[in-house]
């Protein structure tokens, strides 16, 4: 009879160890998701302008075009002042990143380069300078600022190097580009002048 008792106990113990493990049991569910480095550059608006107007506005991977209404005085061809501000409101990068700006030409230069200045002539503006600044993450970065030139109709190559500023964390807000052209009493050589500024948030430009 003892054998029967022992056998019954053994069965009970076996049942306990296989179906039930303990007086209490715990488990856990670990769950996770990842967010990649992401930047969003919104479509800008012209938040300030003087003697300038937008003809096209585009955000990431697009091209915005600003036309200077009266680049020179209609009577004297003297260089007029102009300025504009593009605001990319609500742009962001969700990680530590860079904000960069780069000039293509290093000045507003005549696109077709059709008119030259003869030797011995008095001053003409041959390259139009400007001052560009970028404001992002609470800081203003000095961008390209090529000078107006009376001697060269080429862009200032020293002003075409990309300028990058480190932002130490994620930032969401207004990316602001301000460009100003200073007036000059000297006449400007006839032609169509253009420059391209590239803005970038994220990786180094």
């Amino acid at each position: 009879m003892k054998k029967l008792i022992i056998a019954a106990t053994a069965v009970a113990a076996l049942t306990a160890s296989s179906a039930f493990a303990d007086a209490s049991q715990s488990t856990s569910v670990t769950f996770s998701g990842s967010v990649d480095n992401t930047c969003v550059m919104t479509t800008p608006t012209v938040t300030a302008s003087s003697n300038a107007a937008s003809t096209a506005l585009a955000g990431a991977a697009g091209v915005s075009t600003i036309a200077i209404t009266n680049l020179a005085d209609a009577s004297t061809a003297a260089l007029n002042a102009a300025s504009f501000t593009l605001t990319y409101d609500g742009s962001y990068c969700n990680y530590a990143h860079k904000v960069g700006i780069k000039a293509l030409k290093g000045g507003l230069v005549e696109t077709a380069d059709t008119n030259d200045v003869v030797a011995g002539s008095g001053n003409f503006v041959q390259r139009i300078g400007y001052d560009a600044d970028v404001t992002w993450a609470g800081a203003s970065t000095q961008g390209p600022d090529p000078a107006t030139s009376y001697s060269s109709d080429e862009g200032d190559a020293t002003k075409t190097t990309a300028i990058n500023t480190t932002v130490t964390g994620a930032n969401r807000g207004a990316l602001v580009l301000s460009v100003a052209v200073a007036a000059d009493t000297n006449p400007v050589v006839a032609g169509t002048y253009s420059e391209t500024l590239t803005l970038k948030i994220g990786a180094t430009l």
Partner: protein
Amino acid sequence: MSVRLQSLFLAFSCAFISLAAKADESQISENGFGGVIGRVCGIQSVEIPPQGNVTSVNADNGVAIVFNNFVNPQDSTPLAISFQVNFEAKCNYAHSLRVQSQSGGMTLLGGTPIANGFGTRRDYSTEVIWAGNRGSYQTNGNPQSNVDFQVNGAATDVLTIRLNAPANNTPLVSGTYSDIIFVNLHGAP
């Protein structure tokens, strides 16, 4: 041995046997048997029903789930996420169930950067179903977010945990977000 002696011996033997048989009119033997079943609970097999955008793997002492499409890759805004996990479980006595979040939301691993305009935690709601009980909690950063059930008897059932988080328009800071839900079947207080 002579024939007489043999007869005497047999007579004596028979007398002895007879004496023994008459020691008691009847005999009773009571035989008890049985065993002790302790208070035990078991969380056994886990089942993760097929569901989109979720990868699951068995992990030490539980299961690990990864959301494959956690945010919109274009702007890092959270996408709607959900999953369900089922455990076959048993408790052979009145017991309690606690399901509790470790972090009170899916938090950014490696700390929380200062980043205005971004989310650094992904809150979610959890629904728990067990032994006829249904409860839920919504995370809000409180690590004690939990569901507690007092079950007044033994139960064998499927313990179901469902998690949901809606989409929203606040982008998340780059990184990995995680939380752990602890499930504990234990003795009633």
